[in-house]
């Protein structure tokens, strides 16, 4: 029997702090006429995640383990390199985004918050078992419901909202097209593919199928169940995306404050316009989902690396049983923390990650 909510976790990870920043900035800059992108990207998200899930269910292995079996080594390493760099930069940008939002609530130096947040996330990944992490993640995903609240508090104009949601408009100017590119790169990010296949494998192991030959193969009813779970998860993800765009479109765009770059900036700017509560909800959503999204990226990168080189891995194993896997998690998380201090400021990392994300889809 499959446990419900894997799709929910993947869907929530897709609304990570840097994605929230992108959606908030899209709403502020382009207003309600950009809302239709949420329903349009929804079926695409389902396709991407469902295929990854199916690959995991049928082969009983993660995506990179399959690539390793089927493709040449240089190809494997090229794809791996791209994914590792992308995941780590984005995890770093997300930790920075969480710290900026926490900074609104806690008056500590931003550097201190970055380190504390990063270490809490690291401890959680190392000492939490797969089932514990999965259960906590399912609760954290609900933090995103904050954005429905903040959109309601924004009192959107009904007519403009409906028009923007159902009538796709494309303006052929640079800003609009650049934003569409950024939103596609953000919502269809590559870490989703690998994560879903790994989750399916961990679930099979949690159900007692510890050997590969036991995990091979799946049934039609299991695939159907996973399809519905993923449809639910992606629907949740894109509903949240929709309400993030709506909450800044109804406030910041209307007020002419169109230059918003991060989620924390949006939270600050919302306060005078939509009330303290709306700004607070915005910040809380970033923090809550950050604790889910960063592990998805750093642990996800560790899965990819270990599967590519054939090291023992899996959150179901204790740290002593899969040392290299957990060392990889620790190193990746440490680099993600470190990015916030060296040369690249969080804002630049965010832009870099978004550009990189769109680009690395090519292989």
């Amino acid at each position, binding site marked *: 029997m499959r446990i419900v909510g894997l799709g929910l976790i993947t869907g929530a990870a897709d609304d990570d702090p840097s994605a929230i920043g992108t959606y908030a900035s899209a709403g502020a800059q382009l207003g309600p006429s950009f809302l239709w992108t949420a329903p349009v990207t929804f*079926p*695409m998200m*389902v*396709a*991407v995640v*469902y*295929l*990854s899930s*199916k*690959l995991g269910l*049928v*082969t009983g292995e993660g*995506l990179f383990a*399959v*690539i390793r079996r*089927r493709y040449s080594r240089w190809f494997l390493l090229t*794809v791996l390199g791209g994914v590792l760099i992308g995941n780590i930069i984005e995890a770093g940008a997300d930790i920075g985004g969480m710290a900026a939002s926490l900074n609104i609530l806690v008056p500590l130096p931003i550097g201190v918050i970055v380190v504390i947040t990063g270490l809490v996330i690291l401890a959680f990944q190392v000492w939490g078992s797969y089932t514990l992490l999965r259960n906590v993640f399912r609760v954290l995903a609900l933090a995103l419901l904050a954005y429905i609240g903040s959109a309601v508090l924004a009192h959107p104009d009904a007519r403009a909202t409906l028009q923007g949601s159902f009538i796709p408009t494309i303006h052929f100017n*640079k800003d609009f*097209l*650049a934003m*569409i*590119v950024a939103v*596609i*790169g953000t919502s*269809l990010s590559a870490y989703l*593919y690998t994560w879903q296949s790994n989750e399916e494998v961990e679930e099979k192991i949690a159900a007692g199928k510890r050997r590969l030959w036991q995990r091979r*193969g*799946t049934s039609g009813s299991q*695939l159907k169940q996973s399809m519905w779970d993923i449809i639910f998860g992606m629907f949740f993800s894109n509903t949240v995306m929709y309400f993030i765009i709506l909450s800044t479109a109804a406030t910041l765009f209307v007020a002419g404050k169109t230059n918003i770059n991060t989620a924390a900036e949006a939270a600050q700017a919302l306060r005078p316009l939509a009330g303290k509560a709306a700004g607070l909800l915005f910040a809380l959503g970033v923090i809550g989902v950050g604790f889910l999204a960063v592990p998805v990226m750093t642990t996800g990168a560790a899965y990819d690396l270990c599967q590519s080189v054939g090291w023992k891995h899996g959150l179901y194993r204790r740290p002593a049983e899969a040392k290299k896997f957990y060392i990889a998690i620790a190193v990746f998380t440490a680099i993600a923390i470190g990015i916030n201090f060296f040369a690249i400021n969080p804002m630049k990392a965010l832009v870099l990650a978004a*550009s990189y994300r*769109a*680009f690395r*889809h*090519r*292989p």
Partner: protein
Amino acid sequence: MLLVMLMTNSRAIMGNRVNGRAINVLGWITTAAIFAASVGLVVSWFV
């Protein structure tokens, strides 16, 4: 995404569970959208 599409359509990997038509159409549309976005991004560097 291209890679995922190729793998889930490979009989050697998926056995009799290769993709059906509906999911393939959707998958290729998605691949095209991602590809278009990548091209758009590269173009935006030069504009």
